[in-house]
């Protein structure tokens, strides 16, 4: 089982500034799943109850000179602590950029400094048992810096198969997706909203409406966003519904089969909004077929264009607490 690659500057930037801070909010521990073509960060795919998040990078998005081999179809997966990974990466970047900066003015030589990442087994101090690590290495001008991030034992063949199966399962697309108008503002709003209750009802209609509501015996607090950009199945709102209250408009749309409602944990919903730390270009919410989960899909554009960057993808699946009415 071998893995060795060099992190590109773009890859360093993507991980350190954008993805690791966001993924850490999903949960401290995640699986890193490496295949011949992809590196994938996975949260809660093997244990059912938390929010699932799937951040997938094509190898070119992060690495060059990417080499992987294993007896399991060149697939390796292990659990890793994201905060340790982030700290290791930060410290190594500090050395790396310092060295690069001191050499950038040089006489056009090939930058010899590169940031290597590899899987190793080492004997930790005071231990007889070799342990697996993900190691970062950067050779400086006078010194080399090595950061070892402890990882779990690589997953067994059957666990990797299970992980792959869960990943395949998590690719279903909701029939209708609505675009979040202002991620920051919505996050701010839900942050305040979460003080009044623990469960939130999320309704999404084919008319492009997103309706959020927390309802307890003491208070009902809701927000309705209308005429949002839609992807997938669409319908026009019947004219009579324009002047109704948000609640009755949603109820009628559900009766007509034009909308679905699911109940999720406010905490999960807030976490899904925190994903905007990855600086996506847009975000879409949708309810999976038969209301099995609430899905949020983030879209990334190739810089300077409006074309989707297919080498990066991120989506989350929020477990539904009550099947609701659909």
């Amino acid at each position, binding site marked *: 089982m071998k893995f060795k690659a060099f992190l590109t500057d773009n890859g360093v930037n993507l991980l350190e500034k954008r993805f690791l801070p966001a993924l850490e909010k999903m949960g401290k521990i995640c699986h890193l799943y490496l295949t011949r073509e992809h590196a994938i960060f996975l949260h809660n795919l093997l244990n059912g109850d938390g929010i699932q998040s799937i951040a997938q990078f094509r190898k070119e998005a992060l690495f060059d000179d990417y080499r992987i081999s294993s007896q399991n179809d060149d697939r390796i997966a292990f659990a890793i602590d994201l905060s340790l990974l982030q700290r290791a990466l930060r410290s190594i970047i500090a050395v790396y950029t310092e060295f690069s900066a001191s050499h950038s003015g040089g006489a056009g030589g090939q930058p010899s400094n590169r940031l290597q990442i590899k899987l190793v087994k080492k004997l930790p101090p005071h231990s007889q048992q070799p342990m697996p690590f993900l190691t970062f290495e950067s050779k400086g001008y006078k010194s080399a810096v090595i950061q070892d991030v402890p990882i779990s034992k690589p997953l067994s063949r059957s666990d990797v198969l299970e992980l792959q199966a869960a990943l395949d399962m998590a690719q279903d697309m909701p029939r209708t997706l609505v675009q979040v108008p202002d991620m920051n503002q919505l996050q701010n709003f839900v942050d305040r909203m979460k*003080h009044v209750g623990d469960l939130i009802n999320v309704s999404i209609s084919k008319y492009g409406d997103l309706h959020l509501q927390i309802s307890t015996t003491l*208070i009902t607090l809701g927000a309705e966003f209308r005429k949002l950009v839609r992807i997938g199945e669409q319908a026009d709102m019947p004219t009579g519904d324009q002047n109704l209250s948000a609640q009755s408009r949603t109820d009628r749309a559900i009766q007509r089969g034009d909308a679905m409602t699911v109940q999720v944990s406010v905490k999960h919903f807030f976490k899904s909004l925190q994903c905007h730390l990855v600086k996506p270009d847009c975000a879409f919410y949708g309810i999976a077929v038969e209301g099995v989960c609430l899905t949020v899909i983030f879209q990334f554009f190739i810089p300077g264009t409006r074309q989707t960057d297919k080498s990066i993808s991120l989506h989350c699946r929020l477990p539904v607490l009550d099947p609701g009415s659909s």
Partner: protein
Amino acid sequence: MSSSAVEPDSPDLVCQLDSVQGMVDALTSVRWKRHQCPKIFDDTPLEVKLRFYKDAVVELSEHGIVLIVEDTGCLQAKVYLQRELFVSYEYNAQGRPRFGVSLGLFVDCLNTFSVPGRSSTIEFQYPGPDMQLLLKSVDSLDACIYAEIRTRIPDTISWDYNFEPAGSTPLSFTVKHLHKVDPFDQVSYKKKEKKKSLIVDVLRLNIAPCPKSSALKEAIDDLEWPGSSIQIILQPVPPSVTFRGEGHGDLQIDFMYYVNTDLLIAFNCDRRVAYRYKYKFLRATTSNIPSSVIKDNRGSKLTIGLGGMLKVQHLVSLARPSHPHIDSAGYQQPSRIAYIEFFVKPEVDEDTGNGS
């Protein structure tokens, strides 16, 4: 001729406010105990929840809205939101409708309507079809926030906080929140610590100036150290206010009127008075002053009334965030201010030295 019976369906009050943050600030300053509003669990029985949320009484009238909060019959706070603060105010009730509402829930809910950097207009309606308090945002057609808060039949106010002046001249002083810092003559601290058999005298001449905090709040926060009961002494010669705490140590904080007129901007006292107040109640009067009030720096006025009843007044600006120049120009619109008053009963104490 015109009677409310003509329109039996019209609610008691429909009003709109364009400074939600100002209202959040005003109500936050009387929300002195966070644990009055624990998190709601859906499986908590309703009666238990209602006991948790036993906190504020709201009274509606043609003049505006008053919110009253009480604590164990010794502390009462009132927030006055006059009708002039509202963009529109349609009052249709006879008498003065009152209802009970969870203050914590109400503030948390209102806070949801206040989006930073944007003035948001909110509409209140009472009662809704099931006696709820209804709120909704009205400034955007394609995004709407709404809330329905359950109300209760209010508790009776346990004692009457009739505040009466203590004599012909009022006994009062006004403390500016922020002031120029002079390291030597501002506030004097005398601290005596009892350590085993030794008595250590510590004299501290100044508090570290904290630009975000208020002088009064800092002084009261510092008094936490000596103990549960604080004596406030006003005396005409030399004109000064003394806060004295005695417990496992003594701490005395003096505000001298003539020494720094930037700190005490007003002082009225014709005879020496001294009363004791429970520390936790005194602290409640300043512990939640929002930073906007401190920045506005209108000062807080403390008055001692008949029998030692202490009144603490704060002013909260409800100006729209889009017009900050109003304050910087020194022009303060009187109609955009919410008044907050705290009343604290003194401790029963024979040895107060207030004459006979």
